[in-house]
């Protein structure tokens, strides 16, 4: 009986269409069209300046083949893989889970303080946190060096990938923490208590009671934050891809080549590849969500 519940205000179809029009228009213009446009633009050798700007040529899959043989692209892909693995799949997930787990039994004040700190790291604007870490990791006068007693270490130069991975963990754990917090509170306490009474230690409890309940959440969460991390541009604000391409993850690679270097056709083809990867991850995620239901 879905018909009966509809149209309570008597809008009627034409007005409903008018209501949806502005939103659909914007979404089409700035999501659908760009997605399709990567395909079109990526098949040309369009550049911002020079001959190719005035007279772009159709190169078909030329850009893709160029990308596949471009060592810069391969390197960038590798770095991105490291970044997503280290920061999202292992970093944020584990940190989020351990935080959620520990805070369950922490005193209220401690819980509030830690949660607020972790959340702040997430909601502060990206250029602010980027500078905070630039200052933190700075060679002369950085607080990290002061604490670790390692004066003169330029973290962003000497350990660039490690730096941005740790930075991203710091920045993004909040989401996983909240998600696991909610998932853990949904685990029936009676099951936990039965396990504890049977003598199970923390690790055993985690393995036998908690994990089966949250396994679905772990998977979907990991997919989601992987997707976000894969598309994250923020490391640019710390290193701009340097030193010497050492942290040129894919978003930064695209920016440097296409928007800074002006190779729009090439950059478009790579963006297209990125969209495909995003699509695969997103479809996986939706599939998993549906299964979980």
């Amino acid at each position: 009986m879905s018909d009966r519940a509809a149209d309570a205000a008597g809008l009627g179809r034409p007005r409903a269409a008018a209501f949806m029009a502005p939103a659909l228009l914007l979404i089409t213009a700035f999501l659908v069209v760009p997605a399709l446009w990567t395909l079109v633009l990526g098949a040309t050798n369009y550049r911002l300046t020079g001959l190719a700007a005035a007279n772009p040529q159709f190169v078909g899959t030329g850009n893709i083949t160029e990308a596949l043989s471009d060592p810069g692209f391969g390197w960038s892909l590798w770095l991105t893989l490291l970044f997503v693995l280290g920061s999202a799949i292992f970093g944020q997930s584990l940190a989020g889970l351990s935080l959620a787990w520990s805070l369950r039994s922490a005193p209220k004040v401690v819980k509030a303080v830690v949660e607020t700190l972790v959340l702040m790291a997430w909601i502060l604007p990206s250029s602010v946190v980027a500078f905070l870490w630039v200052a933190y990791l700075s060679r002369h006068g950085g607080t990290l060096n002061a604490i670790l007693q390692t004066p003169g270490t330029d973290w962003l130069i000497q350990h660039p990938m490690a730096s941005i991975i740790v930075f991203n963990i710091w920045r993004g754990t909040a989401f996983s923490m909240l998600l696991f917090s909610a998932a853990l509170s949904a685990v029936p306490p009676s099951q936990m208590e039965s396990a504890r009474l049977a003598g199970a230690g923390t690790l055993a409890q985690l393995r036998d009671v908690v994990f089966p309940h949250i396994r679905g959440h772990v998977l979907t969460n990991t997919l989601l934050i992987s997707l976000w991390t894969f598309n994250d541009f923020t490391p640019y604000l710390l290193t701009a891809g340097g030193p010497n391409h050492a942290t040129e993850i894919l978003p930064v690679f695209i920016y440097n080549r296409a928007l800074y270097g002006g190779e729009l056709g090439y950059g478009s083809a790579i963006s297209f590849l990125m969209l495909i990867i995003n699509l695969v991850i997103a479809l996986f995620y939706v599939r998993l969500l549906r299964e979980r239901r």
Partner: protein
Amino acid sequence: MSPQAFLRRVGFVLFLAVVTAFWALPMLWLVTAPFDAHPGLTVRWPEWTLDNFRRLSESPYAFSSLRNSVLLAGGAMILVTVFGALAAYALSRVHVPGRGAILYGMLLLSSIVTGTAAMVPIFQLMFTLGLIDDRTGVILVLTGGLLPAAIFVLKDFMDATPRSYEESARVFGASPTQVLRHVVLPIARPGLATIAVWALVNAWGDFLTAYILLRDPTKTPAGVVMYTFYSEGGQANLPLISAFSVLYALPVVVLYIFVNRRYGFRFHGGIKS
């Protein structure tokens, strides 16, 4: 307490201490340096002063960028809320053919066509339309990216609102416009407020869209200006950067506290609480 339990306790406390330090330390600079007469990169007890804020006006772009941020974020907030609410209401109440597909399609689209993946085509698109270096363009792009999620959440919210209010008004003779004005809008206010705040915060923190679409430094918002402050060559102007960071970050922090107090942190993710 047994030695095992004691060790476990110690480990627990240690863990929380490390975690707290890890998260707090980088942020400490933000609460010390802006109030320090001679701020350095290291966190230290400040020589208390508010001078750094007063001197913000010396920078040509500090306040103008904040104004731009207000413009961009406010514009995106208004468009997302209004267009999103209209679309969500129509999708919720009227039997539009294929509305399930539209909704999920939209949501999928917004997760796939991220700012990063779309930066090249959007740049080229705006370039062709002559909308480079135009703040309206930025507002439109931001709105387009935020709308799908907003519509999804608002539609959910509308679905949960009983239709009897609208039907009641209708039987009393209210026209559809009157029903919307008298009944729907007031009742939907909490949902609309949440989305408005969410859109505002997202747009306020945006970097990439403004970075690629705006050239004129008098038009760039705080996020981009902040980056130029510390990335442009030469010695970083720490009094400027620190004070500016606070002003740029403050609205978001305030809004978070406000929303948290009012509504509790409603978490929209894998699980809704």
